[in-house]
């Protein structure tokens, strides 16, 4: 008996972020019928927060005189991950990322304003960050419009709940709950899953990440990234990538936006101490927000205090910061809002992440640290600053500014998460695979639901890698579906 579906499509895409929209648009271009299901009431997912995306040997790089070869990028991915990334997946991405730039510009309508690096003073960073006008949020708008124009059925506020796999092993459809709460059953020859990973699921973070800090992490990405696609794929036999716990973590203040100047001050590589008042590293780790995220996740309570004196503040206001935060606070920007914001936060008794003390000892008491411990750390640090040599953590002397002039401030930085990136094992065709390593016919996994691009950590030295992979893996998956549908294999 033929199974009854509410509608039949060649391909159903689950998730309307960058990867899902890229897949849907390409599927329509390839002549496939396509439905896209997005559980939020708008498209974008975490891609809506991305500033740019990586590509290699693109014409946008070429016309700016920037040379980043595919071979260079490929080697950078492998070396950074200690060869724990999936070489096949990396190779396919590196080969095709420049085509994504052409597609987004020439076919979808994006305009690229620049190709840049992300962090200053970061050895080996490649100039790969292609920045579209209006950031990736604008690319998302264009992709959504393009998808609709090309006849893709976009269903918002619609959650996929189950992927259907037949006795023959092939994908046969999706069950979803629509905006009215009605259960809908869609037939499909292929399903592309791009639900954005599990950054918004404390339980999955505790399960897959090395440190069990799921409840404490501050999620600044999409609230819908609860690992739905990962769980649905696992239900039908897909297996996890070995680096499923790869997270993009960074330092952020609780209850602050990423444009806050106090938040940015807390990232500066001056004097940092842990929960117990002890200095714990060379603070230049803060120049790479990915590195500091990975480090602080393992600190007591996954937090640190950034200790500033009045000289630090004057420097940040009048000369500018040492490091920004993407496009939200630029590198070398003067933090003119810092004094007002700091004072307001320090006197607000409800806030527990900014404190002020006329002396180091008074400040220590307010942040719950033994005064003699913080005093000793500050004195030792000031000694290194005076000598121009950090004998303890070897920090570059240009960031060694003594902490001597009151009032003193402590800014509490906690671990934030943007996205998770290592979830499911895929092959270089973006197909999810089973425990035997065989592709599950018709099941594709893209964007942050797919593992293989990274090892245990996000790689900020190739800025825009995650979003570049999202946009590229999407259209690559659709092309493979089209090839197999036309060959009668699905």
């Amino acid at each position, binding site marked *: 008996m033929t199974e009854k579906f*509410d509608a039949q499509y060649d391909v159903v895409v689950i998730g309307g972020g960058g990867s899902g929209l890229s897949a849907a648009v390409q599927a329509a271009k390839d002549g496939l019928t396509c439905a896209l299901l997005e559980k939020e009431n708008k498209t974008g997912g975490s891609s809506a927060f991305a500033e740019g995306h990586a590509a290699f040997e693109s014409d946008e790089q070429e016309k700016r005189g920037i040379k980043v070869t595919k071979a260079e990028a490929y080697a950078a991915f492998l070396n950074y991950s200690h060869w724990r990334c999936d070489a096949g997946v990396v190779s396919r991405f590196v080969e095709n990322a420049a085509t994504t730039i052409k597609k987004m510009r020439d076919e979808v309508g994006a305009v690229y304003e620049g190709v840049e690096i992300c962090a200053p003073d970061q050895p080996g960073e490649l100039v790969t960050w292609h920045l579209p006008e209006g950031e990736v949020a604008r690319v998302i708008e264009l992709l959504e*419009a393009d998808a609709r*124009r090309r006849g893709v059925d976009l*269903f918002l506020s619609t959650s996929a709940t189950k992927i259907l796999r037949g006795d023959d092993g092939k994908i046969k459809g999706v069950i979803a709950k629509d*905006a*009215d709460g009605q259960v*809908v059953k869609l037939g499909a020859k292929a399903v592309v899953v791009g639900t954005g990973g599990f950054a918004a699921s404390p339980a999955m973070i505790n399960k897959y990440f090395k440190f069990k800090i799921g409840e404490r992490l501050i999620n600044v990405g999409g609230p819908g990234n609860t690992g739905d696609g990962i769980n649905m794929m696992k239900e039908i036999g897909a297996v996890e990538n070995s680096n499923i716990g790869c997270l993009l973590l960074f330092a952020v203040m609780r209850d602050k936006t990423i444009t806050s100047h106090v938040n940015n001050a807390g990232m500066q590589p001056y004097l940092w101490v842990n929960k117990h008042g002890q200095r714990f590293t060379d603070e230049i780790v803060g120049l790479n927000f990915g590195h500091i995220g990975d480090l602080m996740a393992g600190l007591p309570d996954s937090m640190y205090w950034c200790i500033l004196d009045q000289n630090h503040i004057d420097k940040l206001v009048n000369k500018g910061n040492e490091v920004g935060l993407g496009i939200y606070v630029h590198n070398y920007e003067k933090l003119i809002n810092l004094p007002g914001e700091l004072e307001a936060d320090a006197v607000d008794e409800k806030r527990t992440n900014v404190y002020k003390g006329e002396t180091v000892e008074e400040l220590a008491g307010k942040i719950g640290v033994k005064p003699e411990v913080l005093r000793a750390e500050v004195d030792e640090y000031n000694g290194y600053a005076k000598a121009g040599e950090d004998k303890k953590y070897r920090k570059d002397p240009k960031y060694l500014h003594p902490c001597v002039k009151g009032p003193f401030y402590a800014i509490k930085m906690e671990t934030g998460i943007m996205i998770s990136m290592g979830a499911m094992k895929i092959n270089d065709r973006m197909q999810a695979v089973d425990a035997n390593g065989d592709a599950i016919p018709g099941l594709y996994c893209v964007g942050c639901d797919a593992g293989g691009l990274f090892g245990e950590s996000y790689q900020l030295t190739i800025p825009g890698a995650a979003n570049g992979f999202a946009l590229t893996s999407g259209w690559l998956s659709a092309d493979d579906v089209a090839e197999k549908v036309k060959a009668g294999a699905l």
Partner: protein
Amino acid sequence: MCRPAINSIHDSGKGRQKMRTVIVYKWARNAEDAAVRSDGSVDWRNAKMTAGEDDFAALDAAKAIAEGSELIGLTIGDGDASWALARGVLQATSVFDAPNLTDNASTAAIIAAAVQQIGSVDAVVIGDSEEYSGVPVALAGLLGWPAIAHVSSASTANGRVQIVRKQGKNEQTISIAAPVVVAVSAASAEKAAPGMKEQLAARKRPITKLTLDTIGVNRADKVACKGTRLPEVTAARIFDGDPALAAEQLVAALRDQGVL
């Protein structure tokens, strides 16, 4: 064009008269779907007819006028005709080969001919589009009916169409005999779009397909676009840095330009 007979039928059970109503929807492209290139050319690519920002409000008004009577959806062009069928309209007519035309009167001619093809219509309700503002009035002119524009809501009372519209700060209530063209302006976006189940079911509801030939309309556009160019732009100046200094510079610049 002859003025058609009024086809109001008295409904003795409810003490009101039935209004056979047509809701016109998805009859133009959305300008936001066009890509404006750096040379000033406008690329519509394969932009389809789409629901206008006033179509939702127009549908609400049409339902209120037609309450208990026949409500027929009418769309032109290549948009998805099931839009109205997913929103409570039970039957629709589509002039599916109608092109998007620059000339508002030509668009109105297609809609008018389709309304006459449907026949025995008492009220035509359409979005009062700012972009294509000539269409509702041209439609009324072609049908030979009165048109009420800028309408915020509508209903029927005593066999007449009751219309409410804003006139500045005042609200005006108009009672008019059918037939009439009602052009509705939306005050807000659609509150709740139908779910996927309803949208998919709508595609199975009846759509009468018409062509320009069957309704006797010439497809030629009476307006030819000879070219487009980008608007003149004035470079913005940003005053940043020290707030007091930036404010001084801003005031000085405004004085220099004669604004202050």
